[in-house]
């Protein structure tokens, strides 16, 4: 697409523009109503934001005829960006659906909540489509600041405030590193535009200290966002303190958005200087996979458990950035899509068990769920199996693709580490499943009986759709893989 006139830019950012419009509309609605005690506001605004996401999806589908492989502007309208939009939109749609009853129960300021959720998605979509490091930065910050605010949105929760603040401080710190990296890259290549950086690094060697330092700092900035060991430490705390649906959103959308961008920048545009970051990534992937899985073994809080699980998945995905061949890239896209669905489905179940609040978040609280709520328990079990990479679930296919990609580029050791850490991860995923099916609820007198779980329609929808998608992606993956293969950056 030519970017000679402004209209085309607007078109290229169509989905983002639509979402922004809806978000602003929701904010205006909030100002005009100013009646926070309205119980059905959540349902109404949730539906409006969902409509926004769907509208953005329609525009996204309409952009396919315009999709070029390489655009010379600073916004890419390639099929890769459009695919990442799908994943991000899916993630936010599910986050909205599981939020509706949560915000109503928790009496959270609803207009801000949904508006911020949409803004965060806009930022992520902007980031994944951008071809300029400055625009990446802007997108990243739009998303981050929205999520900082979302983490603290329940003002009566000191934990949430603490989490938000912690996230903000450390996020600001990592943003500093990120920006410093951008500055150094700009200083050494003379541009922040990725295409120009690509051209400037064609015959770079390992003497360009400024460039390499910049690249590494940029990588560290990303590693912080996706939670790669040793830049992961904020994750468990922040996940634990944030409202449940936001934790879910953070664990999928932020991770997916950051990884889509991560891959675009490092796998494609900084590929020429892989000698500088390859070894580092190799070690980071290894340490992340093994370390996170080991630590996850002893977690009892499900949000912390999922935090470490998410860190481990970052480790797996880092391999795809490193191996960056077509199989790896398909693996990345497939994995992120499936991971988004499975993880959001899991959080839908968590929200239900927690009864739209923040209690009952221990693994032992899931005892006996299988007999009380077989549908939820079954769905959760399938999602857990998918995260663990059990055959006939989507997660298995994703892992196989990543493994194949790693082996094609002869990262044998990483492949073995991936398999071993996957096997370790089975333990804690199945431990949760084991509690659901194998344990009866402990009859301790001091804890009151768990309330009857009532499944709102929205959550039923999330669970059922995720369940179908995960199983479908595990048994008939070829269509999705075929679609993904047309969305690759590496043609």
């Amino acid at each position, binding site marked *: 697409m030519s970017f000679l006139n402004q209209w085309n830019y607007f078109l290229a950012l169509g989905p983002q523009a639509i979402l922004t419009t809806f978000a602003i509309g929701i904010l205006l609605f909030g100002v005009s109503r100013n009646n926070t005690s309205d119980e059905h506001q959540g349902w109404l605004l949730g539906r409006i934001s969902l409509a926004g996401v769907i509208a953005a999806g329609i525009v996204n589908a309409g952009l396919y005829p315009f999709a070029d492989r390489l655009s010379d502007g600073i916004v890419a309208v390639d099929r890769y960006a459009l695919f990442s939009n799908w994943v991000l939109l899916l993630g936010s749609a599910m986050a909205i659906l599981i939020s509706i009853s949560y915000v109503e129960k928790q009496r959270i300021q609803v207009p801000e909540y949904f508006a911020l959720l949409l803004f965060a998605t806009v930022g992520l979509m902007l980031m994944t489509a951008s071809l300029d490091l400055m625009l990446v930065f802007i997108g990243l910050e739009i998303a981050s600041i929205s999520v900082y605010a979302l983490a603290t949105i329940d003002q009566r929760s000191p934990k949430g405030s603490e989490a938000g603040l912690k996230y903000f401080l450390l996020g600001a710190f*990592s943003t500093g*590193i990120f920006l410093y990296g951008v500055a150094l890259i700009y200083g050494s290549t003379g541009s922040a535009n990725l295409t120009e950086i690509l051209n400037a690094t064609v015959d770079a060697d390992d003497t360009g*200290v400024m460039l390499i330092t910049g690249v590494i700092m940029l990588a560290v900035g990303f590693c912080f966002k996706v939670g790669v060991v*040793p830049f992961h430490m904020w994750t468990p705390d922040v996940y634990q303190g944030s409202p449940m649906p936001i934790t879910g959103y953070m664990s999928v959308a932020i991770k997916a958005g950051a990884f889509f961008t991560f891959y675009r920048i490092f796998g494609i545009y900084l590929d020429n200087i892989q000698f500088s970051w390859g070894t*580092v990534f190799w070690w980071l992937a290894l340490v992340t996979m093994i*370390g996170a899985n*080991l630590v996850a073994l002893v977690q009892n809080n499900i949000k912390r458990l999922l935090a470490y699980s998410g860190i481990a998945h970052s480790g797996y995905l880092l391999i795809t950035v490193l191996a960056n061949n077509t199989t790896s890239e398909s693996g990345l896209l497939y994995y992120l899509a499936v991971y988004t669905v499975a993880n959001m489905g899991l959080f839908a179940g968590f929200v239900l068990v927690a009864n739209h609040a923040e209690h009952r978040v221990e693994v032992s609280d899931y005892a006996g769920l299988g007999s009380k709520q077989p549908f939820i328990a079954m769905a959760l079990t399938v999602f857990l199996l998918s995260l663990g990479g059990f055959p006939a679930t989507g997660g298995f296919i994703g892992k196989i693709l990543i493994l*194949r990609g790693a082996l094609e580029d002869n990262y044998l050791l990483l492949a073995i580490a991936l398999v071993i850490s996957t096997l370790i991860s089975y333990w804690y995923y199945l431990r949760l499943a084991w509690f659901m099916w194998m344990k009866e609820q402990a009859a301790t007198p001091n804890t009151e009986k768990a309330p009857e779980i009532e499944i709102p329609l929205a959550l039923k929808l999330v669970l059922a759709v995720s369940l179908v998608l995960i199983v479908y992606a595990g048994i008939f993956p*070829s269509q999705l893989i075929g679609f993904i293969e047309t969305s690759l950056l590496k043609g």
Partner: protein
Amino acid sequence: MINPHLNLFIESGLFVDGNMNWKPIMPAIIILAPLIGFIINGAISLYLNRPNVNSKGESSNGLKRIVSVVGPGSILASFIVVGLNGFRMLLAGHPTTFNANYWTWLQTSDFQVNVGIQIDTLSIVMMAVITGVGFLIHLFSIGYMESEKGYARYFAYLNLFVFFMLILVMGSSYPIMFVGWEGVGLCSYLLIGYWFEDEEKASAGKKAFIVNRIGDLGFLLGIFLLHSALGSVDYVGVAENASGVFVYGGGLVTLITLFFLLAGVGKSAQIPLFVWLPDAMAGPTPVSALIHAATMVTAGVYLIVRSSVLFAMAPVTSALVAGIGVSTALFAATIACKQYDIKKVLAYSTISQLGYMFLGVGVGAYTAGVFHLVTHAFFKALLFLGAGAVIHSMHHALHKVHSEDDPQDMRNMGGLRQYMPITCFLMWIATLAISGVWPLSGFFSKDEIIWMTGSFAMAESSPFPSLYKIYWVMAVATALMTAYYMTRFMVMTFHGKNRTVDGAGSAIHETPKIMLIPLIILGFLSFFGGWVNVTPHLMESVIGGFGALPMTDWLHHWIEPVIAESHHIQLENIGETGHVSPVGGGEVFWAVLSTCAAAVLVIGTTYFKSKSLSYGVLGEDSGTISRFLYNKWYIDEFYDKWIVKPLGQMSKFCWLKFDQGFIDRAVNLSGRSAKGIGWFGSLFHTGQVNTYAFFLTLGLLAVLITVMF
């Protein structure tokens, strides 16, 4: 021989297409029937679990009846289709391989896996065992699980297990086998922990799960290496390309087979990964019979036979397979000699017999391995179900007199023959079969393995002749030990004086009919099952009644097409196997001798044991060796100390030092500070965010330093 009407029926358009090939839907029924059973039973189980249904007894009784029909019925349906397939193959004269691809499962640039099944002579034997024995065990379960709470759930899991097991043996490629492989592991885990009120039993399931993961690691790596080397992972492709790519004794094929061996060792409970199987006996007894004796644990043997081409080209791995097999056989047999739990004896006996199968496939006697797998499925299922009947009876009797005695402890039994004569009789058949007494099934299968071990040692250019001679001696010793511990088992249970607490004895009753019928069928199979694979040599000797008994070497020819290539490789590289045993004497001589030895041992022990065992032998064994064996060589303790505990400590260490250390402080402080001047300011004093930022910087510096220098 076969009814022409049946022939006509099979070949009608219902099942075959114009070219007389099977329609792909027919084999699919075999897999789908148990799945449908699982869905129906699962739905019923979920329905019954609802709290408001539990009170309505009458509706749940009707549903229970549906479960009783659907559970075994779905397996019977697949068995019938398997039978049709088998007949069709038999009629074809020359067994053909049927392949059906349903859809492409996975496709990347150079990696393609189709969801497809392969029905050949090997898989049809496995399918027949799984569905046939599986059906009998399902039938038995109706009686055994009658009064259990989760009746529908139990059958749902059992159906699901059969479904995955069929995928395992019917898949046309290694990845599909892996799907089944993982699936049966999952079901085994679910069924071991079936009585989940019991903490110990639930943790036994976990142990099984983890040990199996180690095996799965081997399987996955093996598949990937195989693909890297050959470019295909389906059996047909592997068989075609293997001899062109690999060289005999080459490093790559050895590595691949070692990975597969690791997988098999985990699944089939061989040294050093056998520890999970005895613990797995915590599940209901029919589960032990089906999963942990007849089917799932033999998956490792199936994997090796399936990969016979690869194993034949890797003499080192094969020697290791045989070595692991025979060591496990001997080792488990020693433990079985000193166990008192009726199921533990059978568990170690299973491990021991699986060792025999490994020995068989390790010496290139793939047919013998499969043969022993089949006969073992018959007599071990019978033993387990019989033991289940005994436990069932004991449980009720002890319950009646309000005794706290363990219904599984053989020291509490004795003299049960007078109460359960039919069960006793049937179990004696199985015992004689497993002991290798002529003319029962176990005699022929075990004898062939031992014989092939000996003749492999005497082959023209056997790779490690003296090693195989040692194997042979160990195998013979194990055979005698088997006769000993099985007789001990029978005598302690059924003979001598009754040692149950006062009054309980008379409450012990014969097995109910629904449970007895499967036992009788299995008894028949345990007796005659061995007659399908008798070498002509033996048939014409005294063993075969000088050709008078209706024996055949059918199985040998039946399996041959699947393993022909491996025999070819074997013949090329190590030449003809010998026809004498390591210490002289022909096949017949040793066959007769082994029977005599086993028979003498059985009779001798019976006589000796029935005299010495009387009421009140409950005391622990005092001898050092006895205690050592009773405690299973202290292997569990060894693993616990050197593997389980260190791993747990490592995980805790990582957590506490690198993560929790900061967090604990933070959580405490944030609680305290909220009361103070204002938590915002104090957050900066917790040191937590500072520490995180500090580590972030440290990480950055570390990374930068790595890159720069």
